[in-house]
């Protein structure tokens, strides 16, 4: 069984944790959508680069590619860089999900108890079906996630104030927009690195670019819409101050005093999509780790990765919102220049130069 383009699309779409749009709103207020536009273009460009790199040698994932292009040791070093980032991605996404569930549903439940079922689920889905099971799940969960994003928009038309968007650009300025676009970029592209590993599992690897770019394009568009609507519904001053502006916008829907509190439904679907994002990044991390150490240890690696992220969440659960810190310090300063731009560019140039080595 192989991964289809459609499955890759939904897996990558589920990586979009669009209810946390903090940086765009904080830097741009009513012009958050301009920031989202700019960072969306950046996301698409980077995804395109990643997908192209992953196709340099069809059937090989990043591990094989690095080995073939850069030799054994340099290849392992680069793979290690990615594994660390993927591991962080897993741990932080898990952390984000736990924070959300803790705040909204289970404030009195100990954090380990909240994380445990999800961790076991991650181990189960990876050991039992691997990436193919995740792909098939994503075909159901992805569209649902997309819908739960869109349906509230229609319900919110009545409470939108379109003058909230004014003045356009004048309050923000180009400097602020660029400054805000970088952290927004960091927030919105957890999924962009997935093709590096997943393209190798695809039926038709040459389709990966198309689906990957579409997935990240749609999710960037979705971030833009969510930022726009948060401002329209809540106002340009209130939206940036909230931890989850999109969820609060959904909560303020009240139609005929009857359709209310629809965020309760959203919570479930968000959890589903987190499951897809988490299981995919667990798969990618543990598969990479197995290639680094020994291919036969793959299943053990899944348990290790999940166990470590479990520990990471449980041990840091007193810190509060870790996501912003992580994004600003690790993602923007290291991951973005090194893993997102530097290495893919290097690999791509090397790949074009050393075509023979890839055959």
């Amino acid at each position, binding site marked *: 069984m192989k991964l289809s383009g459609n499955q890759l699309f939904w897996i990558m779409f589920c990586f979009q944790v669009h209810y946390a749009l903090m940086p765009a709103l904080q830097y741009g207020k009513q012009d958050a959508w301009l920031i989202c536009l700019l960072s969306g273009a950046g996301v698409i460009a980077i995804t395109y680069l990643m997908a192209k790199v992953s196709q340099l040698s069809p059937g090989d994932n990043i591990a094989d590619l690095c080995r073939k292009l850069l030799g054994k040791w340099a290849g392992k070093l680069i793979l290690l860089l990615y594994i660390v980032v993927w591991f962080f991605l897993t741990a932080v996404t898990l952390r984000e999900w736990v924070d959300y569930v803790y705040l909204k549903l289970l404030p009195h439940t100990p954090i380990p108890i909240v994380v445990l079922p999800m961790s076991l689920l991650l181990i189960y889905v990876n050991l039992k079906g691997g990436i193919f099971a995740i792909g098939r799940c994503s075909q159901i969960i992805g569209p649902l996630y997309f819908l739960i994003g869109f349906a509230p928009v229609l319900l919110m038309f009545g409470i939108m104030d379109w003058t909230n968007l*004014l*003045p356009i650009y*004048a309050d923000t300025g180009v400097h602020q927009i660029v400054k805000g676009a970088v952290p927004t970029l960091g927030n919105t592209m957890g999924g962009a690195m997935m093709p590096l590993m997943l393209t190798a599992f695809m039926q038709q690897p040459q389709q990966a670019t198309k689906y990957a770019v579409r997935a990240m394009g749609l999710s960037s568009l979705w971030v833009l819409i969510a930022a726009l609507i948060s401002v329209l519904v809540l106002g340009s001053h*209130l939206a940036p101050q909230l931890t989850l502006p999109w969820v*609060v916008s959904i909560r*303020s829907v009240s139609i005929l005093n009857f359709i209310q509190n629809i965020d309760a439904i959203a919570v479930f679907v968000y959890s589903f999509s987190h499951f897809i994002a988490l299981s995919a990044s667990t798969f990618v991390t543990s598969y990479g780790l197995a290639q680094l150490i020994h291919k036969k240890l793959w299943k053990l690696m899944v348990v290790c990765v999940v166990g470590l992220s479990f520990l990471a969440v449980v041990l840091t659960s007193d810190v509060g919102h870790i996501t912003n810190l992580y994004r600003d310090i690790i993602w923007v300063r290291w991951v973005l220049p090194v893993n997102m731009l530097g290495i893919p560019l290097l690999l791509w140039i090397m790949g074009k130069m050393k075509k023979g080595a890839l055959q």
Partner: protein
Amino acid sequence: MSKFKRVRSQLSAAIMIAVLMGITTGCWDMVEPNERSIWVGSGVDSAAGRKIDLSVQIAVPRALGEGGGQQKPYLVKSTVGRNLEDCFQRLQAQLSRQIFLGHRHAVFVGQKTAETGMRRLMDEFGRNPRSNIRAKLFLVKGATAKAFLAESGGIEYFSTEKAIRQTRFNGINDKMTTMIFFKEVLQRDGMRPLMQVVETGTEKDPKSEAEGSEPSHREIALFNNSAAAVGYLQEEEAIAALWAAGYLEDQMVTETVYGQEVTIDLHHMKRTLKSKIEGENVELKLILRAQGIVDENDTDLNLFIYSDMKKVEQAFNQKIEQQMNTMIKMVQQKYKTDIFGFGEDIHRRHPKQWSQMKGNWDERFPKVKVTVISNIVIRHIGERGPK
């Protein structure tokens, strides 16, 4: 698959379903409605030494059901604490049920508290994840919020419910009476919030209700930049102010036309602002739009005749322009607080000039020259033409 295997898988599925059904029935985390106090409204008054006197109206479910007619359907408890959440904690000590903010429909602020500024009270609204973010804000005039909560709700079970329904059926946009909207406006540079006012003593003993007639009273409170109430507007002035500030959606408006009264039931009420800046002078055009049905016509005009209908329309527009002008002048001169959002319109239309103005907007606001244009259209004359 062999037969034995199929039977086994079916059996295990059946067992799984049975087990799942067993553990998912009902609430088993003990947060049942019976464990919670249904907190309908809270009232905030100030106490000595920066402290807060918080009162809550709690539903008594026993009295709400059938046969509970003897008992009051609510209970009012109050306590003094250092901030809102501190008061919640102290209240919990008095209650046999867990406090639950999900049902808090409204927050009432006593007049004294509102006039001294309530900025420091705003943080709890919208931070506590369990509270209802669509809760409304009201100012209790001439009394404490506690006194209002202790009052009977008339037709409704609770005075909280009464206040909310009153505003809703008076044509005010639902979203704009909520505390999240109040908080949003409070942070705008060029707009100041306003709040609905409720009074105590409006509900009397049901037996004597028909006798002495209490004048109905509609009132709003105007706030300044530091969330302190600086003035009040009543009746027609209040309605005009709500319309000019963009809060109103529909309203019945009665004006004197050719010496007699005409009432038009207006809907789709909108206001548009157009600002113009020339040097130091700020000019604003306030355009009011609405459509309506003539509900009552005491004049001798025959509305079947087009020109007569237009006469009513014109007279109406003139009257509204006059009233608006008087009201806006008064707010500018007496209260000096920009509840209409004139500054916000300059911010949105002329952001460059606004950056120089926003620092002392409160001083500039009284000098703004406002032209009112009323654009009411009669969409229907009702079921008959002549008187």
